[in-house]
Structure formats: C-alpha cells, structure tokens
C-alpha cells in the first residue's frame, strides 16, 4: 500500500512546536555575531522631490556605525536596460528605462515608506533613535492616488515618461461581440488593494568576507534571489551564497529578493561589516509589496435562457509607484478572464498605471483572483438580470467534462476538469435547496438577519512558469538514509513531508530516514523556488524522477553485487530491500547498495522541464447572514470543492485550502489597504488593517474531488492559491445575494458593515 495519498502528519512540526523555527531574525550563527543592525529612514510623504538629506546629527548618535544614502552608492553597476514585459512570474519584472526603481531614493520619493537612507547601529534599539535624527528635506508634489488620477497623468511620477500609464494593451473595439445578445449587463467593479501580511515580515542578514557575499533572507526563491543580488550589486553569482532559513509565510510577496534587502546586502559589502535587518509591521504594511488593486469594467451578454455569449473586461491595474510584477499580473487576469465557462466571444485588455503607493506584486493568486472575482460577479449580475438561479446559469455555461483539453478565446488551454461535477457536489454538500428555502422564509418574515447564498465557480492556472522547470538531487547514503535536495522552497507548505513521502513511496526508504534540504544555493545551485503553486507538480515530480533514476542505478549496482541480471532484480518497496526475484536469501539493503557505489555515490540529479501549466478548478458556496439594521456580515458556512488533481497528502492539501479560503474571505469582508487623497496610508498598522482573526471565520466544509492532471506522473496540479481564488467571489456574491431583494445588485469589496449599510440605506431611500 503506497504512502502516497494517505494522511501523514508533518515531519517539520516537532521542531517548530518545541524550539520554534529559525527565521532570519533568530539566526545566531558565528558569521553574524558582530553584525550591525540596519534601520531604514523612509519617506513620510507620498510624492516629493528630495532637496536635501542631513545625516550629521544621526551620525553623532549613540551606537551609530554609519548613515548611508544614495550618494554612498558609488560601487553599484548601472541599472539594467528596459526589460520589457517578457519573463515569467518567477522573477520580478521591473520596467526599466524611464520607470526604473532605484535602491535608495535618488532625487525623488514616490510612495510613503520608500527607503531614503539607512542608519547602521551596533544594536537594534539604537537604530530607531538614530533614524529619527536623519533630517530629509522634501518638496512635496501632487500625489497621484487611485486609478483615475493614475490615468489622468496630471502629476507625473516619471516626468520623462510623459504619462503615468506604463503599459497599455489596447482593447478590441466595443460592439461587435455583443450584437446578438438580447441581454447585456455592465458594471464597474474594484478589486481592492491588499497587504499580504505574512506573520514574519521581510528580514535579511548579509556578510561580505573573503570575496564572498552570504545573504540569509526570508525568501521563496533562494536561487532567483542570488541572480537578482548578482545583477543589482554587480557581482558574479558564483561569489554569492543565498540561504533561506525558515520563512514565516510569503504568499507571493517574498518572491526573489526585495529592494530593501538588496540595500542591506549592499551595505554589508560596502562597509565590510555583517548587517541584519528585520522590518517592523508598520514598515511591512507600508513598503512590502501589496496585492490586487485592479479596477474592472465588465460587460456580459447572452440570452434570456441563460446562455452567455460574450464577455468583456477592461482592466486598469494600479501598480503602485514602480511597475514591478504589477506590470505583468493583468496579463494573467486576461488569460483567465473567461473562467470555467464556454463563452464564444471574450474581449480583454488592460492598462497599468503608476501611482504614489507601494508597488504591487504577487499576492496569493496573483492576477487570477481578480479574473475570477470579475467573471463571477458578471455571472451573478447576468443571472439577476434574467431572473435565473445563479447555480443554473453556471451549470448551463460551464465547460462540459467531455470537452477537455479546452482552449479558451483568451488563449489558455485547460488540461483536465469536471466543472459541473464540482458545482453539483458543492450544491449537494451545502444543501442548496434548503438554504434557498430558509432564505425565502426569512424574506417572507422580513427578518432583520437575512441569509445570502453565494457561488463562485473557478478555474485557475498553476505553474504558469512551468517552462522554468524545477530541480532535484537525491543522494542515498551508505547508512541507508537519503537526502533530497530540492529547488522548491517551502515556507509552510510541508514539502519536507511530501518529498519524503515520495522517496519512501518510490524507494522504500522510510520517511524518517529521508532529509529534505532546500533554500541554500551552495547546496542546491539550481532551482526556481515556490510560487505560482508550482512546487508539487514540478519540484515534487523532480524528486520522484530522481528517485526513479536512483532506483535504476541501484538496480544495476545490486545486480552487480548479486551477480544477477538487472531484469531479475526487484525492489521490495514495503521493506526497502533489493533482492533477486524469488530468492529472499539475496536481499541487499539500501545502505549496502550505497556503500557499494563507493565514491561515485548513489545519487541522481534531475532538472524537470517537461511540465506544463495546469488548471485546478472548483466551486465555492458561501452562506452569509447580514444584519440589515447595521450592515454587519457574518460568514455562517463555507463549502468548497478545490480540485487540484491527485492528492498526495490530504493533510497538506486541506491546510492549503483552509489558509487560502481565509485569505479569500478576508478580502471579501474585511481587508483593504487604504491611502488618503494625499497618498498617506490610512491602514498602516494591524489595528486599522483588518486582518481576519479566528473569531470572524467558521470552520470550513471541504469536499473531495480529484480529477488528475495528465501532464505529470503524480497527476498533480497546484493547490496553493485555489482556495483564495474561489472564496472571495463566493462571499461577495453571498452578501449581495442577502440584500438583493432590496434591489441591490452590486457592492464593492470589502463588504464592511459601513459599506453594506450604505447600500441598504441607499436602496431603501430609492424605493
């Protein structure tokens, strides 16, 4: 009986639960014993010229080693040329040229929190004191806040560019697609700016010694981080070692290495003293990359019998002050725009505008939640317009199970799926008919607490950068243990458990004898890392393939040892024993075979590049209760199918679904990163940024569905972001559904009590 597919608790946990993880700020290694502390001086204004920086008072403060500004950065290579919009989700995509982002601010600041100077002190406490003494003169400029001011380009963030519109794809001419649609509905919707808020903020330590730079950084991609560091600092990658210790959450915001971390690494090289930095939560909310921030003009057209014929989405992406990955995310939104539906005509396009806010980058879902939120709102609006049950409208339009692989007008080819089954499972699991009956009863009675039932059917793209592949190296040692080196880079996902399961399943070496190593470029120079929900389907497959290669090598060695032919050798996976078929006396352990391999070792290295993007899918159903006197929303139930193919370890998969759902619900009901009209962040602490807690959530109801991928031997797609993608629109649709009988057809997120109340109040006045 293979261990694959069974519930296995994590090997990571005993350490995490007893002595805690070792995150960057926990490192107590000899190399960092004399490390100085970095404290950033950040812009308190959203848009201004820097007319002077006076560091003299700070330099005199207690414990100050140095105060550095851009004028000290004379040892850096020139900025890279315009990189355009090529590349994958796997690396930040700065637009170069006019739109370049410096390390320390040069002559201008473009968002509150932008780094302007660094104060280096012997200890942490002194840093904040000294940073207050750095005096920066700002000449304020008009702040550009929000989509419209970005588009209007009256105040320019990059005057030489002549506009704040950094990218514009153009839109198909409106009209043609919707001719022949008896029913057409339009709406403007906003997918609001969010802060990722991993519990561990950004943190980095760096040391330059003997011509080598060692950087410990809270990252999702040690290898990519190394290349970015090399480019930014003008170093040969071979002279850089990047180590990702335990990482306290990433969610896409820790892809590669961040600008602020590059500054710290530079400071270590520049001063010759080891440096460390761990941001405060306020810094994190202000200056770690944000997520989402798209505005959509959506238009959906079809027939009164429920058939959707056309869909159009025009996107404005607020990329914040610098078009990093924000310049690319709407491409993914357009790719997935039509969702799980068979829609004949789909028109998409986008503009990317820079604004005086923190840069936008990947955040759990990275462009796909936006696509799903838009089409799911559109479907509900269409359903309301024709007076049809939204479940029924979905059923009529979902791509049927016999149509896969299915290529959409947006250019995505969905590999495998059974979308109708997912919908039916969720409707049955939730007891849809009874929910509608309860809703009807409450409406009839005019209850204060009204019930809302919201659906979202989704499909999403994982391993969008599959062509980058993933690497693995497996070594079996002469004591019978094994080490699996992986290019994947877990930050909570449980890869060590999953990869050990794969080795045990293939080789019969028990999990507790398998060590998994990741995140150290000295030990694993090749690798892409963990984002885009790519790890199991690429990194896990690479580990499995390495195990298969090791098995083949071992077969040859064992045949040699036993003087038998390879064809007669078999591996008893249950016991991890090699033997000649039918001759138990000939058993060889892994330890013996590995020892026999001698200096060459029993090892295999795989770079798996045969993967392709895969398309998990599902349906979410959210039941909410709305207090129509106050607008307060309570999420009562949340039922899901999230089908990401064959499940390796249900424990891990469920955990990813739970976490994703919580973040999705949080976007729908609570969270928003808000700037005032002058570009000052209003939600700059966790008191004001409404991060969801346990008290706001129910337990979730997860249903099982496994429609295997066919592209890889594990049948695996990626589960990491699916929960988030499905949850947000289900909850939004649910709340709007709860008050739709009052004539309300749309409410933008987050559906805070004030927002919901405003909609109710307006609707009641309108009557």
């Amino acid at each position, binding site marked *: 009986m293979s261990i694959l597919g069974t519930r296995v608790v994590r090997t990571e946990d005993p350490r995490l639960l007893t002595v805690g993880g070792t995150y960057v700020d926990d490192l107590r290694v000899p190399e960092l014993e004399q490390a100085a502390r970095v404290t950033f001086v950040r812009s308190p204004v959203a848009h201004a010229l820097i007319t002077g920086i006076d560091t003299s008072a700070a330099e005199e403060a207690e414990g100050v080693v140095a105060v550095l500004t851009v004028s000290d950065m004379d040892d850096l290579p020139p900025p890279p040329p315009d990189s355009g919009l090529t590349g994958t989700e796997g690396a930040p995509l700065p637009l170069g040229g006019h739109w370049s982002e410096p390390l320390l601010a040069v002559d201008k600041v473009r968002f509150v929190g932008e780094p302007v100077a660094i104060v280096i002190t012997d200890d942490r406490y002194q840093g904040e004191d000294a940073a207050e003494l750095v005096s920066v003169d700002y000449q304020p400029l008009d702040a550009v806040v929000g989509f419209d001011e970005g588009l209007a380009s009256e105040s320019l963030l990059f005057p030489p560019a002549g506009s704040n519109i950094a990218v514009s794809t153009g839109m198909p001419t409106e009209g043609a697609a919707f001719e022949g649609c008896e029913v057409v509905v339009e709406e403007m919707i906003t997918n609001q700016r969010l802060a990722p808020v991993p519990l561990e903020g950004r943190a980095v330590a760096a040391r330059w010694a003997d011509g080598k730079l060692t950087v410990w950084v809270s990252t999702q991609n040690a290898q990519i981080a190394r290349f970015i560091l090399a480019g930014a600092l003008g170093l040969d990658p071979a002279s850089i070692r990047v180590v990702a210790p335990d990482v306290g959450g990433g969610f896409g915001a820790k892809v590669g290495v961040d600008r602020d971390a590059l500054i710290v690494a530079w400071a270590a090289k520049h001063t010759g003293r080891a440096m460390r930095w761990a941001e405060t939560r*306020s810094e994190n909310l202000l200056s770690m990359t944000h997520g989402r921030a798209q505005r959509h003009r959506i238009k959906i057209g079809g027939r009164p019998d429920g058939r959707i014929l056309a869909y159009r989405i025009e996107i404005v992406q607020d990329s914040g002050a610098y078009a990093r990955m924000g310049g690319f995310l709407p491409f993914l939104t357009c790719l997935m725009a039509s969702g799980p539906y068979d829609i004949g005509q789909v028109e998409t396009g986008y503009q990317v505008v820079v604004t005086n806010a923190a840069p936008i980058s990947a955040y759990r879902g990275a462009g796909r939640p936006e696509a799903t939120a838009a089409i799911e709102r559109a479907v509900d609006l269409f359903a309301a317009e024709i007076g049809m049950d939204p479940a029924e409208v979905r059923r009529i339009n979902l791509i049927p199970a016999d149509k896969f692989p299915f290529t959409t007008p947006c250019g995505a080819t969905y590999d495998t799926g059974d979308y109708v089954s997912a919908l039916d499972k969720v409707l049955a699991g939730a007891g849809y008919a009874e929910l509608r009956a309860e809703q009807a009863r409450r409406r009839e009675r005019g209850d204060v607490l009204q019930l809302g039932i919201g659906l979202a059917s989704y499909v999403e793209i994982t391993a969008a950068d599959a062509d980058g592949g993933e690497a693995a190296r497996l070594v079996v040692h002469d004591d019978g243990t094994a080490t699996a080196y992986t290019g994947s880079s877990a930050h909570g996902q449980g890869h060590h458990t999953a990869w050990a399961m794969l080795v045990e399943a293939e080789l019969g070496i028990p999990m507790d004898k398998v060590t998994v190593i990741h995140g150290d470029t000295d030990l694993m120079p090749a690798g892409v890392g963990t984002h885009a929900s790519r790890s199991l389907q690429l990194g896990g497959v690479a580990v499995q393939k390495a195990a298969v290669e090791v098995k083949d090598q071992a077969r040859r060695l064992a045949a040699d040892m036993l003087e038998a032919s390879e064809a007669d050798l078999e591996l008893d996976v249950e016991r991890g024993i090699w033997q000649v078929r039918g001759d138990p006396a000939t058993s060889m352990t892994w330890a013996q075979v590995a020892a026999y391999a001698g200096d060459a070792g029993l090892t295999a290295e795989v770079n798996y590049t045969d993967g392709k993007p895969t398309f998990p899918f599902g349906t979410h159903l959210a039941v909410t209760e709305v207090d129509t006197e106050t607008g307060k929303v309570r999420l009562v139930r949340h039922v899901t199918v999230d089908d990401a193919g064959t499940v390796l370890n249900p424990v891990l998969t469920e955990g990813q679904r739970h976490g994703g759902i919580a973040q999705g619900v949080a976007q729908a009901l609570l969270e928003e990163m808000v700037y005032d009209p002058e570009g000052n962040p209003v939600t700059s*602490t966790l*008191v004001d940024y*409404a991060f969801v*807690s346990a008290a706001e959530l129910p337990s979730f109801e997860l249903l099982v569905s496994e429609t295997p991928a066919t592209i890889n031997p594990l049948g695996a797609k990626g589960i990491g972001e699916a929960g988030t993608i499905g949850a947000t629109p289900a909850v939004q649709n649910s709340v709007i559904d709860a008050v739709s009988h009052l004539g309300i057809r749309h409410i933008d997120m987050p559906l805070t009590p*004030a927002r919901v*109340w405003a909609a109710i109040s307006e609707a009641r006045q309108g009557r």
Partner: protein
Amino acid sequence: MIPAPFTYRRASSVDEALDLAAQSDEDAKFLAGGHSLVPLMKLRLAAPSTLIDIGRIGDLSHISEADGHIAIGAMVTHDQIARSRVLAASVPLLADAAGRIGDPQVRHCGTIGGSLAHADPAADLPAVMLALDATLVVRGSSGDREVMASDFFLGLFETALAPGELLTVIRVPKPASAGWSFQKFSKRGIDWAIVGVAVQGNNVALVNMGSTPLRATATERVLASGSGPHEAAANAAEGTNPPTDLNAPRTYREHLARVLVRRALEEAGSRA
C-alpha cells in the same frame, strides 16, 4: 517598535508613587498594565521621560463589597473584573464589558484604572462608568478627592487627573435596577467599538460618539417620561459628536447609536 529611552521606577505604595511622580519631570507617567501606554510609546506617539510602575501596589488590586457599593482598586485587571463573582452578581454590566475588552492577553494585563485614566473615547469602561454613576477616587499630594464619573472625562485623552495624581479606587454603586445591557459594535471581535452602548436601568451611555464617553440624555429623558425602547432610541444621537473615520462616517455612527440603544434597552428590559 521600540519606545524612546526612559527611566523606569517602581513604587511599592501609593504614597511612594506620588513621591516619585513629584520628583520626576512633568511628563512622567504611571505605568499600570501598560496596555494603553506602552503601545503608544512603541509607536513613539508618547515619550514620557519616566515611567512609574504601580503594578506591584497590592492595595490597588482588591475588589471589595461595602454597603451599597463595590470598591474596585485601580490596578484590578479587566480579566479579574470579568471573573469576579461579586461583580457578576451585583454589577453584571461591568463584568460583561470588561470581559469583552481586546483579547485575553490584553485583559490579563490591562487595568480599569489604566483604561479610565487613558480616556480613549473608543474605550468601553469609561462609558460603563457613566452608566453606573461611578465615583473615582483620586489621590494627590494634598490627599484624596472624589470625582464623579460624569466629571472625570474632559476631552480626548483628557481627564480630571492633575499631573502627579493617581486614580486609586473606583466606587460603583450597586445598581437599583436589574436591567442592563452592553452592546459593542465592531468589524472584528478584537476591534475597538465603532459604537458601543452601556445601559444600566434608565442610564444610557455611549462609546465612541464623541471625544469623551457620553450619556444619551435625550434618550434618557424620553425613557423617564415612560416611553419604550423604540421611541427612546430615536434620538440617541442627539447631542453627540461622533467622528468620521476609516470604519464609519459620522452618519453611520449616528444610525448605529439609534439601533444599538434600542437593542440595549430591549435587552435590559428583558432582564429587569
């Protein structure tokens, strides 16, 4: 994230605390549970040069029942108030409200004295004190004085405490009516109230409807004339000056006040 430097002093008695305050600069602060003050200091919104820790003064940590009132030491924590059998029996409004402040960790440290002296208009206990007609005992260099709760809260983070004075005891009269209710409306369980209502008998007090806690005097007048919750709540917002902020425009707060006062009066009525 780190407070500006300060000098820490510890007092073992109220008199010693007052002496230490007299010896320190004017900006010296008493440190009770620290859960109003230390967060401000960490954000450097407050930077007293001296903190006088009164956390070990045993005299301030008692809840005692006397004739007609309960005396609560200023250093009694929210958690102790929430679990107090004496208060659950005699002043359930206070026990209930204290049990809903922040989260358990905050309640283990935060004190009633600290909360009242801090006088955040979004805090729950100041309004509860108004609803209970509590008396606050203050000790200064010239001895003890008593301040009615209605005279204690003067403005935003401003109280009747003079520099160097220490709030020592809160005296809560045992309510005549068994009717009480505490309504706390917020986005998340851990949040400050967007609007809160404390009702004890016909006393109605409001949280976060102005720069201080307020009695809903218009509502109380209507109640006194014999009207029911619905009518009385209709002008709950009269005389208030609620803020507009991230969570609520002013008009929404006024609306919430009316709804919550009605609900509070209905609930109080069901208990009376």
